[in-house]
């Protein structure tokens, strides 16, 4: 595990910057644009048309709730699904019409896929045999990959009797064994892995990522998994990418209300506010925020602030609003305080234990540098 075998130096064709250009997908036979939309119909786009690029060698997590289109996007990138519209480029090369086996992509699925009747060795050799490799080359290549994945001892065994963790490694190995593979796609690969093995396998993935400099795209609905695994997290909801950023950016600067609510526990507070022409006000009190631009629209404005940054103060002051404390709960490292602000509920997550009690009336301070204005779903810059 100390040194990468020399054969992993990838040629030009191994590099891949993946670009999605105006890519959209609908599972209906005729997408919305080709016929008049009816009001009662659900949004026909499983994946709304989008344009974005994935850099070579990056570790991306695709984060979102179940049914948000993550797997659809993944299957389009790997070629299992033909998009309804748009193009996919690998390094400027249009691969939209290419079948999965002609793209230099590997995919690991939610449940381990192994060929039951084959040994571990045959499983790993399968993609190479299908590509007509010579036995000696296959032998060498499979041994390299099994060394990386710690599968050497199992090579001669039948694949079906192995643990879920080992099977998932085999699935991964079948992807890595092809030397042209530039990106590995993971579709919630740790779902069936025992919790105590999850972190081991996740660490292995990171190791492989660093060793082979492959691009990784990792689909998950678990924010901890996404934030610990990836360099950049792509947050999706309702078939739309709402933000791409580092874990810190997603936490500190959510560009979309969904990101604020989905990331963090509990999610970001969004408090309805009014606009007086110059500043946002809650119950008539001016709330200064980091948003410098004027909101494009005046309706459905809200102040967003993380529960971690809400401070409980005894008296009024700038950026302070009167609150009613609903409940106080000590959860160990922090104290969760449920508040009622202008008839809306909100959370404060306090680091230190406090002497607050339920039904108390006091004030909450929203530090201006931690507040942002949201118009509709979007953050106002």
């Amino acid at each position: 595990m100390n040194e990468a075998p020399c054969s992993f130096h990838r040629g030009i064709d191994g590099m891949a910057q993946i670009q999605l250009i105006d890519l959209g997908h609908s599972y209906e036979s005729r997408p919305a644009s080709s016929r008049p939309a009816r009001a009662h119909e659900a949004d026909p786009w499983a994946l709304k048309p989008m344009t974005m690029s994935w850099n070579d060698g990056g570790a991306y997590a695709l984060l979102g709730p179940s049914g948000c289109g993550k797997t659809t996007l993944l299957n389009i990138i790997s070629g299992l699904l033909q998009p309804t519209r748009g193009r996919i480029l690998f390094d400027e090369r249009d691969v939209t019409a290419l079948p999965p086996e002609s793209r230099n992509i590997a995919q690991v699925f939610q449940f381990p896929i192994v060929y039951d009747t084959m040994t571990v060795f045959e499983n790993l050799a399968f993609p190479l045999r299908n590509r007509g490799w010579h036995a000696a080359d296959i032998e060498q290549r499979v041994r390299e990959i099994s060394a990386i994945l710690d599968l050497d001892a199992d090579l001669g065994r039948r694949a079906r009797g192995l643990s879920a963790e080992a099977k998932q490694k085999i699935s991964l190995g079948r992807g890595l064994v092809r030397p042209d593979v530039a990106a590995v796609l993971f579709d919630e690969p740790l779902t069936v892995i025992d919790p105590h093995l999850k972190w081991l396998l996740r660490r292995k993935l990171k190791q492989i990522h660093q060793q082979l400099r492959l691009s990784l795209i990792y689909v998950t609905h678990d924010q901890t998994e996404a934030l610990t695994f990836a360099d950049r997290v792509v947050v999706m909801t309702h078939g739309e990418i709402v933000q791409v950023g580092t874990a810190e950016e997603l936490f500190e600067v959510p560009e979309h209300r969904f990101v604020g609510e989905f990331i963090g526990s509990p999610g970001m507070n969004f408090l309805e506010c009014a606009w007086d022409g110059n500043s946002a006000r809650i119950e008539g009190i001016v709330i200064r925020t980091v948003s410098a631009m004027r909101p494009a629209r005046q309706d459905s404005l809200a102040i967003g602030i993380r529960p971690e940054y809400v401070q409980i103060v005894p008296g009024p002051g700038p950026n302070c609003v009167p609150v009613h404390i609903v409940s106080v709960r000590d959860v160990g490292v922090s104290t969760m305080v449920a508040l009622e602000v202008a008839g809306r509920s909100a959370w404060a997550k306090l680091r230190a234990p406090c002497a607050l009690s339920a039904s108390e009336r006091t004030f909450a301070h929203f530090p201006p540098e931690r507040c942002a204005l949201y118009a509709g779903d979007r953050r106002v810059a």
Partner: protein
Amino acid sequence: MNGPKPVNQRAWWLVLPVLVSVAFSAIIPLMTVVNYSVQDILGPTQRVFVGMEWFREVLRDSELHGALLRQLVFSGAVLLIEMPLGVALALAMPQSGWRASLALVLFAMPLLIPWNVVGTIWQIFARPDIGMLGHALTQLGFDYNYAQHSMDAWITVLLMDVWHWTSLVALLAYAGLRSIPEAYYQAAAIDGASRWAVFRHIELPRLRSVLMIAVLLRFMDSFMIYTEPFVLTGGGPGTATTFLSQYLTQKAVGQFDLGPAAAFSLVYFLIILLVCFMLYSFMKDIDTRESP
């Protein structure tokens, strides 16, 4: 604690209903046959114990040897044709939508037709004078007549069985195929597997248990076949399509040889049991050899 704990035996009463029903449905009838097989029944009140006499007679009976051989060839041919054909049909069936429903209904159709009706349908269908198949073949210049030529009779009986029962294999295989998760096909597509490799390494291993059931069902059924060839050819021409069941019926009902017929029944029963056991353990063996 000293001494063994007293055991409450009253729970045995709960087994009684099952015991009684099994006794009347299986054990007593079987023992009656065993009883007949060792006696010579001369009249309602006259019987003589003959020991293994009937068994010896039956096992030396050359007509029975012929029937047994024909039976084995027939069951073997049925399995060799219906299993691959059924799997091939299942693979070709549409996977969803109204076409799948239509295919399922069409495939289920032959299974719903009573045995003797199937026999009658083919009896008429294959007649060289008025039957569509027989007449067409004759017009095309074939010397086809299932009532005269043994080969024609065999082909017709086999064709009838294939028509009647291949859909059972196809439906079982279809159900097995539908239970294979989509991800297996996706993984195979990414691995660049050919259609044959997908069949060989994904579909076939995952169909093994349903195919095992299909083989057992088709073997047992074809080994006991009676009605259809009886209606179609009556076992002829000569004894060309007389299979074991028909021979047994001739002995028991036709000639009223109760003793030999009973002995023969037991031998027949043991053969089926033996062959099923062999098939089952053979396939179980493949199963265990492939696990570590």
